[in-house]
């Protein structure tokens, strides 16, 4: 007996496997090198973290979404770049520098997330409008600080190793991404925060009458989303050894696409971390496959749009109604 959530998981895992087989048939040996898998692995985490953020926002319901993710990620990098040298000298203590850099970035993520949370949770603003506003605010501040130009971290072995070099054959940023995803999955499944979040996402009114402090819950959710964005910011800074306010402007839509592919319901109350991770890897394999096959990059944008619509339509259609009921039992909305 399959439940809906198992079906989603198997579907996405199947897509991953199919894409790898397709790549083997269409491109061949070049695609199957360990180097290529490492290269794809380093590209997944920044987008994956933003997608996890979008997932949390969507689960929380009331049209939840986060458009400010990548702007906050870049702002976190910009501020950390300015503040970190005040505490640690880079040349003498690169490890401490990177730790300070990360700490400052995380603080910016907490503050930015708290702003989103306050606007959405306590001021009751619509998430799409509130995060559109903070997106402009965050990138505005980043432009103001940098004057619009890129900040050069330069070649710092510690940071570059973290961003680009694999550990036991797996990119370190990818390991970090998986660890964060695991933690998040545990939080959503086993803590009161997680259980209340799904309850609130399905029906905020019922949740409020059941004694859930919905405002505070929304606030904490968006705070967590902000933290995820700032971790993405640290990874971007490490990977590109630089920080720029408008890096990854196309990520906003792709992060939403990944969540929707993963079966996260924009209406709220449903979504799984493992599905988001699988959707992110599937999209990365597809994107690299397009590059290997020398497809036009306009075609990729078009394909992303089609995928988004297709998966949205998929969640709207109740396939269970077309199958014998013995095969299907509607799953509960749990992580």
């Amino acid at each position, binding site marked *: 007996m399959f439940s809906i959530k198992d079906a989603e998981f198997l579907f996405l895992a199947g897509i991953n496997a199919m894409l790898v087989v397709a790549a083997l048939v269409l491109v061949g040996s*070049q695609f199957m090198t360990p180097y290529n898998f490492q290269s794809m692995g380093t590209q997944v985490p920044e987008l994956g973290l933003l997608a996890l953020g979008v997932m949390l926002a969507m689960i929380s319901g009331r049209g939840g979404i986060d458009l400010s993710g990548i702007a906050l990620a870049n702002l976190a990098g910009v501020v950390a770049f300015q503040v970190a040298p005040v505490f640690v000298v880079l040349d003498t203590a690169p490890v401490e520098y990177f730790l300070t850099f990360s700490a400052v970035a995380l603080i910016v993520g907490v503050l930015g997330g708290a702003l989103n949370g306050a606007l959405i949770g306590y001021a009751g603003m619509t998430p799409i409008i509130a995060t559109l506003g903070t997106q402009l605010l965050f990138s505005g501040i980043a432009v103001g600080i940098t004057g619009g130009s890129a900040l050069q971290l330069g070649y710092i072995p510690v940071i570059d190793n973290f961003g680009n070099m694999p550990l036991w054959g797996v990119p370190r940023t990818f390991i970090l991404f998986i660890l964060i995803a695991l933690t998040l999955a545990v939080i959503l499944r086993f803590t009161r925060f997680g259980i209340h979040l799904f309850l609130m996402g399905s029906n905020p009114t019922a949740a409020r009458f059941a004694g859930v402090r919905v405002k505070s819950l929304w606030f904490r959710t968006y705070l967590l989303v902000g933290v995820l964005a700032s971790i993405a910011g640290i990874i971007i800074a490490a990977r590109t050894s630089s920080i720029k306010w408008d890096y990854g402007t*196309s990520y906003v839509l792709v992060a939403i696409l990944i969540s929707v592919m993963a079966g996260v319901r924009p209406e709220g109350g449903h979504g799984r971390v493992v599905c988001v991770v699988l959707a992110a890897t599937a999209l990365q394999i597809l994107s690299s496959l397009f590059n290997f096959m020398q497809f036009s990059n306009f075609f*990729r944008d078009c394909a992303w749009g089609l995928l988004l619509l297709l998966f949205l339509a998929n969640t709207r259609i109740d396939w269970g109604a077309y199958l014998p009921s013995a095969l299907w039992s509607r799953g509960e909305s749990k992580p």
Partner: protein
Amino acid sequence: MLKKNKTILATFATSIALSYSGAVIAQDEQEIVTVVKVTGENWFTRMEEGVNAYGEEHENITTRQVGPGRADAAQQAAIVQDLISQGVDALAIVPMDPSTLEGVLRRAMGRGITVITHEADNLQNTHLDLEAFDNAEFGAHFAEDIAECMGYEGKWTSFVGALGSLTHVQWADGGAEYMSQFPDMELISPKNESFNDSNRAYDLAKQILRSHPDIKGFQGGSAIDVIGIGRAVEEAGLEDETCVYGLGLPRDTSAYLDSGAVDGIAFWDPKDAGYVMNILANKVLNGEEVTTGDDLGVSGYENVTVTEGPGEGKIVRGQAWVDVDASNWSDYPF
């Protein structure tokens, strides 16, 4: 379970693939891929002509041009990363933002891929960076035209896209430096910022014409500055009294060149830049050195200057500006 199957499948696939790979690599075709900032812009469509021309003229070399559908440094970096995985022989890159590519290009060079860049003289991880010309010389070139047109006396001003745009500021400074030899030339409110917006350039030019009705010379910075200035000059009916020169694209500026509101523009031909990047890539692949005074066989790059770059690489500069006025703009289809 499924995941495990996938790994087994992948390992299996790899082993098959590896046994075939010998046959694929055995060809000694060299592959040079040019990565541009964004696909579909006229500038880079023109560059593609040069890239393709090089591939057609040379056997054993395949060339192609790719670029993101949107001007986003992240998308460009992703394309470069996938190209490195494909194991191309050389990359010729016009970076969206040079510093964001440092890490990726370091890995490319680490895997023995030749890296050529264009418009990125601050990039460290490159073998050769190609610049069409020395920026100060380019600015002086405009100033020369303006001074001659004005009869070496009168008021003039300069525009930049933004004070943060290094090249634009270098052009404005190079122009001012050249003008300083003529005592009767007066520079007023230099380096007006148009923010790459022709309406803003138009407003600024109108203000300047109002506060200095006797102004004669304008030096444009960003490619759209001359368009805004030209419109202001045309509205004021001062086509014959003023001298407007600057960077511009022939198609976009043609109307003002014909009316005389803009007297002349200069630019570097992206077709030649694309072609020369591939020449350089081929030279590095063959282990040839490029030194000052070399003739690369393309107009404007017949006597290149080679200087040390900020990293290991070198910077190759030509004198490849193309002057265009009302008489010859139609020769350039972009």
